[in-house]
């Protein structure tokens, strides 16, 4: 007999807890050549902004020990073309869709929420607040409890009652728990942890930063211990909030580690670059491990590493 491997995030049902991570699966078209998108818990689309965006100049990436830096700069077609092309295609595939949005001002987030509130076939909104706020000296929204809450409230006020909001947090903060509490108070129904860490690589031949924009986001197995710590801390502080965990997951074992720390679902990012089928093998391995450890329901394993503290 097989286990109940489904999960739910803010009342939405997903048949498996393995998602793609925003920016690491495009809008699903390319991956659909390797597996049917319906076998994912959900596809989280690349963060979309209001207008088309060229992103940053190349080089946009550098490999690092057990990880990589990227500085894509949110290249994308803008919300209009996205809604015209990507969403209908994904709906046709029967995929469960989580749309990630990003803005440069509080108003941007409000506008995006209004554009998305009545779109059919979306399971949730992931709000990427690791973006520079042009109205506040380019300071990243996710780096301050107040500006993070401003972005989330703007979405909350404009989204209507239907669509759950998942706030995606940055680990580059002194106290991630205070940011988590702040966005939950502002109306987030769930949290996504973690976005990339700010890093830099210098090319020792040219003796200049390798990325055109100097800094980039660090992802991959290298950051997994930071992700596990962030998820564990936030789960301990907010026992009831749904968490989508991510950061360096490449195997079922890794996904299970994030689940034990408190993740209700796990997104796969960088691992897909090493193996287009990563999400599928991770799904299979995770189900095996959860069952082998004696759980009948996936959800019983969520946060299980906290059990000693609950006594």
């Amino acid at each position, binding site marked *: 007999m097989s286990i109940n491997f489904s999960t739910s995030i803010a009342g939405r049902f997903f048949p498996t807890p393995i998602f793609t991570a925003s920016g690491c699966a495009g809008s699903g078209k*390319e*991956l659909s*050549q390797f597996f049917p998108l319906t076998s994912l818990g959900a596809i989280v689309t690349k963060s979309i902004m209001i207008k088309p*965006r*060229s992103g940053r100049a190349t080089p*946009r990436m550098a490999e690092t020990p057990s990880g990589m830096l990227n500085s894509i700069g949110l290249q994308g077609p803008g919300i209009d073309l996205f809604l015209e092309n990507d969403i209908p295609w994904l709906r046709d595939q029967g995929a469960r869709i989580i749309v990630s949005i990003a803005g440069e001002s509080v108003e941007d987030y409000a506008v995006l929420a209004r554009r998305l509130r009545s779109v059919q076939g979306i399971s949730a909104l992931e709000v990427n607040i690791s973006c520079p706020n042009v109205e506040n000296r380019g300071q990243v929204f996710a780096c301050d409890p107040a500006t993070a809450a401003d972005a989330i409230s703007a979405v909350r006020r404009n989204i209507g009652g239907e669509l759950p909001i998942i706030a995606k947090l940055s680990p580059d903060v002194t106290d991630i728990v205070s940011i988590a509490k702040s966005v939950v108070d502002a109306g987030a129904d769930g949290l996504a942890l973690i976005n990339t860490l700010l890093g830099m690589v210098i090319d020792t031949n040219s003796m200049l930063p390798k990325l055109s924009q100097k800094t980039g986001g660090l992802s*991959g197995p290298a950051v997994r211990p930071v992700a596990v710590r962030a998820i564990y801390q936030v789960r301990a502080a907010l026992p009831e909030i749904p968490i989508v965990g991510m950061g360096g997951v490449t195997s079922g074992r890794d996904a299970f580690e994030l689940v034990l720390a408190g993740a209700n679902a796990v997104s796969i990012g960088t*691992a897909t670059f090493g193996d*287009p089928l990563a999400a599928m093998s991770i799904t299979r391995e995770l189900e095996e491990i959860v069952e082998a450890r004696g759980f009948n329901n996936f959800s019983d394993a969520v946060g299980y590493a906290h059990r000693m503290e609950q006594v």
Partner: protein
Amino acid sequence: MINSKAASIKAELISNKKAGSYHHMVFSVGELAAHCKPGNFVAIKVGGPTSAMVLRRAFAIYRASMRSDGMGLLELVVAPHGNGSKWLAAQEAGSVIDLIAPLGTSFGIPVQPVNALLVGGGYGSAPLFALAETLKQRGCRVDMVLGASTAAKIYAPLEGKRSVNSLTITTDDGSAGTLGRVSDVLGQLIKENEIDVIYSCGPMAMLQAITEISTAHDVVHQCSVEESMACGIGVCMTCVLPVEGDDGVVRMTRTCVDGPVMDGNKVLWSSSREIPDGVWGK
């Protein structure tokens, strides 16, 4: 869109031989070989199971063939450079390698016979020999120019040389052929051989220089570009170049799915580390 034939397989390494500065590596890939066209590339997992390298490495397909016994062969020319390529070049026959192929676009083959000039820099000559054969079969005249920093970095196997009408070699240090760069000899070759189309593969600076010459001489230029690629399958957006589309709009375009073979005259070459003005979404 991603190459519709792309598949992820475990391929046995059949042979690995040193050739000058390079390694000529042959893999058994079954039916996949039938789908590989000149210009396509493969993406290879490097470093083994506990490696610190998380990304695949891209390699142009040197040759792909189905043997009469049904075995499909895929051949690469690998330059041991950094950790990933050194690891690959050190693998021994019998090793099983994780690869995705075929990826990306291929060189466009003219329907009518034309005069083609093939230009390769360093291991960039790899995809040109299979291309030369195809062009020859279509009745084209094929001239070739290969350049490198030094003689050992010219990859030009004997059987490859046979399939071209002329082969010109340039080296930066003059250790083989003409002293200088490929761009130094192009103008004359274009005129002498009444070239209709240039096919090129090599470092970006070389492709940019060729584009200037091809524009000046008003010849078609198909080039295989090489941007750093994290995924190779179109999902990460690291590998982009500003390229003008059919609608006249310049977009940051993925070289792994809309390339590596692109129309050189449509690429906005730039050595600055900034998005050129006029690019969509800047």
